[in-house]
């Protein structure tokens, strides 16, 4: 079975999570005796084709137009479907980013089938692909099979390892016959938030703060620790609902689901909604003054103590050890 991977370009760079999806597609296609193609869509994206060959794409389809500079959901979906038909793909993979989750639904809508969203596992069983994905915010996992072809999967960032087998891809330009209606939902403008801020769902280290920090003015403790670790910052639902922190920082059900290498929870008790959103983190550190807090059941390492005493000491020690 051949697989097509949509590769997302942001700020002139290939998204790391797209390379993860490409690598997983190559592993899966290998088991199914197929090859992998990549689809690049946008303006000035052709230059990335070579790197995709290095990461295992045998073929790269490029759809370029100034009108595709920003995400245009219907047009992007049409370009992916065009590449899918060219490649004869039995499956379409993409990273479960904001764009990828949206596009997976759009491609499914065009092809009359559902995508499996936010997959954390791709299995091959009797020549078909099964997708394993969290449901109920990770309180359970569903394994789904596709009744219609192609299988469409968006893959959760930070889960699948990247491989760089080397190689060169054949490049073909595609020019789908776009209609005016393909741009009816197009993005007009993109506003970047604070530069250099690490995005939660893509971060490999996250430091989150909860009610134990006692007030919005004390989140500087969290931020200093995060800076020492080069981490993204998160928050519990309680502090978001109190208006201490914006919703964009909320981790857990009704917030973001994350799986970094290291998750540090400061003054977070570990409500079921929070645990659902971060329990797949590889290593979890918890600092909480209540030894019975549920967070300690999920934590790899815990310190029982006052965040106001422990966190500055931890920041100082990390700076010393990491030479920061």
């Amino acid at each position, binding site marked *: 079975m051949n697989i097509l991977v949509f590769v997302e370009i*942001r700020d002139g760079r290939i998204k790391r999570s797209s390379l993860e999806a490409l690598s997983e597609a190559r592993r899966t296609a290998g088991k199914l005796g197929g090859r992998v193609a990549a689809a690049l869509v946008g303006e000035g994206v052709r230059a990335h084709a070579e790197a995709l060959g290095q990461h295992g794409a045998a073929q790269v389809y490029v759809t370029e137009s100034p009108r595709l500079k920003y995400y245009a*959901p*219907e047009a992007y979906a049409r370009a992916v479907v065009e590449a899918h038909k060219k490649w004869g793909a039995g499956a379409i993979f993409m990273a479960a*980013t*904001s764009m990828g*989750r*949206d596009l997976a*639904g*759009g491609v*499914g*809508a065009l092809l*009359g*089938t*559902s995508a499996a969203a*936010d997959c954390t596992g791709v299995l091959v069983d009797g020549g078909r692909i099964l997708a394993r994905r*969290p*449901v*109920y915010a990770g*309180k*359970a*996992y*569903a*394994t*789904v*099979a*596709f*009744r*219609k072809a192609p299988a469409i999967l968006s893959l959760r960032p930070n889960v699948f390892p990247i491989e760089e087998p080397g190689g060169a891809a054949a490049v073909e330009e595609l020019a789908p016959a776009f209609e005016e*209606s393909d741009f009816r*939902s197009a*993005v*007009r403008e*993109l506003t*970047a*938030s604070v530069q250099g801020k690490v*995005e939660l769902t893509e971060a490999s280290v996250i430091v989150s703060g909860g009610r134990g920090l006692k007030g919005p003015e004390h989140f500087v403790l969290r931020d200093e620790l995060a800076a020492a*670790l080069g981490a993204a910052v998160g928050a519990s639902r309680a502090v978001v*609902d109190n208006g201490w922190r*914006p*919703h*964009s920082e*909320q981790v857990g*059900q*009704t917030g973001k689901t994350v799986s970094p*290498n290291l998750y540090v929870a400061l003054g977070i008790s570990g409500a*079921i909604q929070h645990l659902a959103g971060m329990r797949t983190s590889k*290593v*979890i*550190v918890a600092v909480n003054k209540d030894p019975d807090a549920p967070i*300690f059941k*999920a934590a*790899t*390492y*815990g310190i*029982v*103590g006052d965040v106001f005493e*422990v966190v500055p*000491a931890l920041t100082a*020690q*990390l700076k010393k050890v990491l030479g920061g």
Partner: protein
Amino acid sequence: MNLAVCFKRVPDTTAKIRIASGGKAIDPQGVEFAISPYDAIALEVALRLKEKSGAGEVVGVSMDPEGNDVAIRKALAIGVDRAVLVKGGATFDSHATAQVLAAVLKPRSFDVIFFGKQAIDDDAFQVPTMVAQLLGLPRVNVCTSVEIEGGRAKCRRQIEGGEESVELALPCVISVQKGVNGIHDNRFPTMKGIMAAKSKPVETVAAPAFEPTLELVSLELPPERPPGRIVGQGAAAVPELVRLLKEEAKVL
């Protein structure tokens, strides 16, 4: 302004999930159900838009395999004018669900069809997009702000490290993020609202035919995390924690 809001009855965020025997569904015993939180926010967005425009109505549409009307009653109690309960349909199959909803929505005329960005049971993020496609409407998902003006919807949509601005001609489909237009939850129902809800019209329709696209092979609980340990008490435990992170877990 005529607005539709599609919402789903799902296990509450505080629910502990257990798997029923057979391994293909959750055990509903002891589980509290509620309107999916993002859908509840969509309801509030629509109610405020209607109040601001001073005309039109908000119609709630909910598909429920069991035909349970608890979510519909709650929506009516907070101010939705009337509701359509779609009995039947698929579970955990976005395109099948979209087919059912699109068929129900098609003969009715709305300026905007609202959804929450995802239902918090199957977390699939696709039904709004697919309903839009099936109805031939523009759409925008995960909106953090929605403004309706002069026959157009001006929206901002959250992405990694930024926001996208999108402007759609009405009619259109919009799914919302928590915090959209400053809204984090729906309003509380008043006693008057609860009483009024009893006399509001609810149309019950059987789910139209749909084509299944996904098969649920199994549903399982996540693997237990390996047991962790308490490194120590207070700041004195910090050097040991950092050593473990560096030498044992190798994450520094």
